């Protein structure tokens, strides 16, 4: 794929406003710092590096997306940060303290919503505060507040199975935010939603992020989603999972769907395509395989009965 605009990598160019914004972000305190993080699995075939030498840091109220082809270890990374898995080398620091094990300072939103089907929407959100030992009344007050924020006050007494996928994910977000985490870890949260709901949820998430002091690490495999949401995009490559590039998205804020065709957006997307689908060699084999994989179809209809 040949970049259409120029020979210069346009995604590195930042307008003064965007540049000023990044300068401002970089002056904020660091919430999450990852240094030389590695994860090695021992399998029957030998040792496999799922992640190797990952380095990056996220500043307060930054929205960072992680993107990469399947098998690049992006889910492993977020699970390590959530404390659900152990890493084998390096360190991950949250507010300067090393992460060892799960905790309420990190909110997690899963692709499968993972709501409790036996609890109403409100009780789902109340679960965290109640377990923390807040009284029932305080927990209810907090739950009502966050449900209002995600626009689901009307459904607080409904059960999860009565809600649509997008609404369920909003409950999941409210449930994660009610614990007031330092960072919100989102593992392909909109992956199971249809395109329209997905677009709505993206705008909704940015709305929440704008109004609340929360830092977000967001995993996705959708390039447009990553560019649309992120301040910076962490691109991983597979086998072993390593940082490919950390891109500062030059698309100015506030974002809107109209920017999908802006030159900055397209330049960034072209760069991501280049990194994730390194055209030529690797893809050739895949393409060949795909072609060979196409079954030879026998015609069951009359030749003259052409459907096209």
């Amino acid at each position, binding site marked *: 794929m040949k970049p259409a605009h120029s020979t210069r990598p346009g995604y590195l160019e930042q307008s003064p406003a965007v540049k000023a914004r990044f300068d401002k972000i970089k002056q904020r305190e660091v919430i999450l710092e990852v240094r030389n993080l590695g994860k090695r699995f021992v399998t029957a075939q030998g040792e496999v590096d799922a992640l190797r030498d990952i380095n990056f840091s996220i500043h307060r109220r930054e929205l960072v997306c992680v993107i990469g082809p399947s098998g690049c270890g992006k889910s492993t990374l977020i699970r390590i940060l959530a404390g659900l898995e152990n890493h084998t080398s390096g360190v991950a620091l949250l507010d300067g303290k090393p992460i060892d094990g799960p*905790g309420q300072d990190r909110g997690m939103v899963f692709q499968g919503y993972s709501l409790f089907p036996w609890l109403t929407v409100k009780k789902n959100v109340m679960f965290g505060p109640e377990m923390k030992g807040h009284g029932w009344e305080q927990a209810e007050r907090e739950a009502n507040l966050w449900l209002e924020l995600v626009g689901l006050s009307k459904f607080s007494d409904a059960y999860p199975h009565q809600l649509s996928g997008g609404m369920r994910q909003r409950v999941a977000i409210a449930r994660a935010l009610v614990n007031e985490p330092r960072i919100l870890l989102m593992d392909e949260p909109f992956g199971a939603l249809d395109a329209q709901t997905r677009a709505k949820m993206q705008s909704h998430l940015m709305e929440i992020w704008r109004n609340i002091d929360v830092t977000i690490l967001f995993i996705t495999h959708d390039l447009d989603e990553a560019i649309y949401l992120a301040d910076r995009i962490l691109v991983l490559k597979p086998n072993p999972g390593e940082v490919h590039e950390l891109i500062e998205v030059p698309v100015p804020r506030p974002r809107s769907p109209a920017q999908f065709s802006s030159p900055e957006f397209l330049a960034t997307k072209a760069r991501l395509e280049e990194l994730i689908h390194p055209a030529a060699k690797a893809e050739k084999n895949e393409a060949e395989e795909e072609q060979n994989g196409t079954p030879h179809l026998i015609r069951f209809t009359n030749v003259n009965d052409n459907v096209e």
Partner: protein
Amino acid sequence: MNTTTQLIPSVWQRLMALVQTDASGESVLRKFLGGIAPPLMGIIIFLGIWHVSASGIHTSLGTLPGPVAVMKQADNLYQEYRNEQVREASFHERQKNRKAEFMASNPGEEFSEIKYTGQPTYLDQIFTSLYTVFVGFMLGTVIAVPLGILCGLNKTIQAALNPLIQIFRPVSPLAWLPIVTLVVSAVYISDDPMFAKSFLISAITVTLCSMWPTLVNTALGVASIDKDLLNVSKVLRLSTRTKVMKIVIPSSLKLIFTGMRLSLGVAWMVLIAAEMLAQNPGLGKFVWDEFQNGSSQSLERIMVAVFTIGFVGFMLDRTMHSLQQMASFGQRTE
């Protein structure tokens, strides 16, 4: 006069409503008949075959009774129950009078009451059976659910218990009964027993045979909890106890109830056999006594018992089904 003029249109309207078509364009009446006709037909055909073939089978206790004879016998059993009630009421009445007389002539002295010892009626026997199965089933649930949760949470415990479960699960109540009888007789020695031995033996046999489906299904339910739900508990750093109470049990409730429903079905079947041999005064003993009795009515009475057993079992299953439905949070169960 006035009331009839008001009544007639209302009945008429109701009849008309039956012929009206509903949303799907079918008449309500037709839909209703379509729903009820096949089962009704099944029952009628069954009764017909039974009636015709029964008259051709001659047993040592006379001809096999047909549906009509069995119906009559059911009514007969009900009458016996009514008569027994009257008899008991009059007994208590007499005793009250005697007590009053006694108190009048010997003031300050203790009146020794006589306990009423009437024959247990058919209805009493049904309730004895229900009570026994309930106790046995509950005991089984109390053992099986915690064990199942342990199995589901811990692979090692599962592996340790699995062979035992597989071996004990298919054992017939008839094999357990002698062992239970001997053990209960040896262990349960009391001058003033709270439970009759026959009751305990039946209930424990029911427990031993019926707890397995609950155990297996609970273990399955716990083992198949959505991993993300458990991750939520990890993020909140819940203690094991809280995790089990707040996440593990609620999310496996549906399968726990499925297991309990199967268990109750097994329990009810096993109970009849256990009662027969343990002589616990329930339906099983009733059938056995009638069989030993060998009167001309015995076969009819046994057949009434068969239908009672079937009907009660059906009702128990429906009850468990409703519970299961409640525990499945919107997903339908079969």
